[in-house]
């Protein structure tokens, strides 16, 4: 297995640099630079030239990419154009809130989706199955920003139960209760957004497993339906379900752009959003590096977990 991991890591290197090159080209070739945002066109040409020189934007694109790569090899993600701070520090400040928000949303979604998906597969056309369908439909079809605004309108404005913005009332941690009150609404939206895919995947995988011979054998052995479902059908459907769950890890690290932006949550998603709108290339690249690494490591993790979840999976030498 060690050799397999090493091989996967080696093949991940060109993929990683390919991603960075692609993103670098995309953000740099997008029209406009940060200098175009100076005073909405009212600043002098000298001010703009000074800023371009200070940020290295007067250098050719290949040189800028090589400089960025050189910084990356030294463990530096560069200096934010907009905030004039090291990108790594900006990311470090934002990772925690994103992990908390998106992580709790996804954990909640998993906690709801797994039992609901199993129940929906176990009892087709039951109330559970219908509930699963309705939740999936909402999750798939309603855009995230609408869920955010609807949640704010209902729970914050109309009912006054939950806060509509930020992570804390007074700007910093005062109590767990305060943090949780601020977390419920945005995490609820993240949860609902992720729920549909998870429920559908769990239900479909369980239904497929229920048609397998080993389920017939389990039933023939006289096991209860619950035991058949949980110990056999669910275990047999773990691979696709795990794929779906673990594919959310990059999303957890990268944050949710829409939810964080609307709720004023200080996470990676809102950092990425401001990086793109302000043409802050180092920030966009920095966040991309984090997300790209997360995707590559998640894929590796998935491959390893498959082996644990399904004994038929073997790590070949080829």
């Amino acid at each position, binding site marked *: 297995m060690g050799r397999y991991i090493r091989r996967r890591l080696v093949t991940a290197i060109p993929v990683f640099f390919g991603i960075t090159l692609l993103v670098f080209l995309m953000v740099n070739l997008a029209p406009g630079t940060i200098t175009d945002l100076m005073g909405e066109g009212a*600043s002098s040409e000298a001010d703009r030239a000074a800023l371009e020189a200070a940020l290295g934007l007067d250098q050719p694109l290949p040189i800028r990419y090589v400089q960025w790569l050189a910084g990356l090899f030294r463990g530096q993600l560069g200096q934010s154009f907009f*905030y004039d701070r090291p990108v790594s520090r900006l990311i470090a400040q934002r990772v925690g809130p994103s992990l908390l928000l998106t992580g709790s949303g996804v954990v909640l979604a998993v906690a709801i989706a797994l039992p609901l998906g199993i129940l929906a597969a176990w009892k087709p056309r039951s109330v559970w199955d219908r509930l699963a369908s309705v939740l999936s439909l909402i999750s798939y079809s309603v855009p995230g920003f609408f869920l955010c605004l609807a949640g704010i309108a209902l729970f914050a404005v109309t009912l006054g139960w939950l806060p*509509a913005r930020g992570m804390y009332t007074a700007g910093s941690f005062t109590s767990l209760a305060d943090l949780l009150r601020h977390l419920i609404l945005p995490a609820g939206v993240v949860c609902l957004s992720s729920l549909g895919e998870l429920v559908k995947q769990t239900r479909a995988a369980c239904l497929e497993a229920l048609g397998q011979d080993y389920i017939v054998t389990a039933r023939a052995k006289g096991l209860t339906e619950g035991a058949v479902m949980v110990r056999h059908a669910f275990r047999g459907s773990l691979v696709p379900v795990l794929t779906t769950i673990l594919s959310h890890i990059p999303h957890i690290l990268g944050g949710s752009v829409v939810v964080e932006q609307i709720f004023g949550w200080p996470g990676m998603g809102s950092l990425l959003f401001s990086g793109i709108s302000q043409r802050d290339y180092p920030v966009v690249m920095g966040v991309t590096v984090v997300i790209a690494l997360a995707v590559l490591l998640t894929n590796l993790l998935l491959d390893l977990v498959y082996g644990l979840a399904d004994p038929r999976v073997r790590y070949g030498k080829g």
Partner: protein
Amino acid sequence: MKKLTALFLSLALLLTLAACGPEGKAADVVRYGMSNAWDTLMPYNSPSGSNYTRIVCDKIYDRLAYVHADGSLDPRGAASWESADDGMAVVFHLDEKAAFHDGTAVTAEHWADTIALMTNPDCPALGRSVFNVLAGTDDNGAAIQGEALGAEAVDEYTLKLTFKTPTTPEDFLLDRNREFYVLPTHLLDGTAPSEVMDLELWEAPVGSGPLKFVEEIPGSQLTLQANPDYHLGRPGFDTLVITVMDKSNLLPSLMAGDLDYYAFGGNLSVESAETARKGGIEVLEGTVPNSFYELMLNNQTISSSAIRRAIDLALDKDALCLHTAQGLGEPTATDLTPGTEYTSSLTWNRDVEGAKALLAEGGYDGSTYTLACTSNRSGLAALMQQQLAEADITVTIETVDSATLFSGMADGKYDMAIASHTPGALPLWFTESRFSEGNNIFHVSDLSPYTALIAQIKATSGGAERQALVDQLQELLAQERPFIPLWFGRTLHAQSPTVDNIDYPSSSFSNENVWEWTLK
């Protein structure tokens, strides 16, 4: 399965119980919303130079004066001022009670040193051109070696600014006050000008403004504390927390009682006003214009002034203004802000037939023009497209973000673009920066007639003589029509349900009277 369910339910119960704990707002906190982030807490190192940065720096650092939306001025860092040297200088008598957050008194030396440092060519200050009105600086605002810089500490509390051309205190303050902040230069001793911007001081800045820095998550949240020793009075709250959030959530958060105020001045659209009222928020109507809408034109691709005038005639500014400002605006033929000292007799009328005649005169060949706009103005752009089509002018619309729009206009990619600005009380607030070699955003082939008149207006201190020159400039603009003035808009303000004494309109001039704010 049962164990899992029990575990999940217990966890959910625990979280719910925890969330139901002590609710609400911590004592004496003003929760302040903002739809865009500031970029820096060092006011002379702002890449964007945006109003969001200015409104944040306004709280930490002091400026010379407080500018009201109607153009009137109140003392702030300076207690009084007067003209000197036949109008070539302004003497500011600083407030002797003003002090930095570390207790050091703010002196004229601090002001003079700040200006000397920021105009030092070795100092990588951004937006340095704001100093180019001072004697001893070049057009970019950099100090010229061997020449006396026009910023002098006459005595401990008297600052004298000397200009290149005669400038009244009012002209200077209305034009530049928002860019002039005093820095704690006593904390910079021994730092080379080239390294000033790298100091960690700017990450936890010490200013002399009404609020002190506490902590920051750049681009997301800023916590400030009331300065109890602020010379104009202690703010009536302890802490102010600024949160960056989406525009769409500002009013709902205010209605939910989760925000106390949002920048700038709790601006509201007419559509949102009804929602705000229903939500128990009082809505105030702005009294002075706080926005100026223009149609930027590319004078290179639309090279005939007759065609540019035809576009002006083809537009129904009343309908455009009604569509966007819903009656809270005033269509205009000039960029002179209504209600200020300077007026114009020029008027506008829609005349589609006249537009067609001008098109024929200008040799319009039926070309399709590209009109760029940001997504929130796509409806306005569509209306313009319709109106121009009635005069047989074909336009395609490109919806882009701000950076793309301005770079597209600067590159000459777009033929026209919709933009809005915060108007000023001075007659050159719009034209001066846009008709220069350094920033010829309209791609005017010969700037000299404009720059000559602008220079003459600047050299005249006021009165009938200046008004006559302003009239000449406006006549020239009307004839050449390098851009099309559309309307001046007033805004609606969502009044804070929890904070009193907010001067709502003045916030659009990048200053807020936070020292007068009190919690209800």
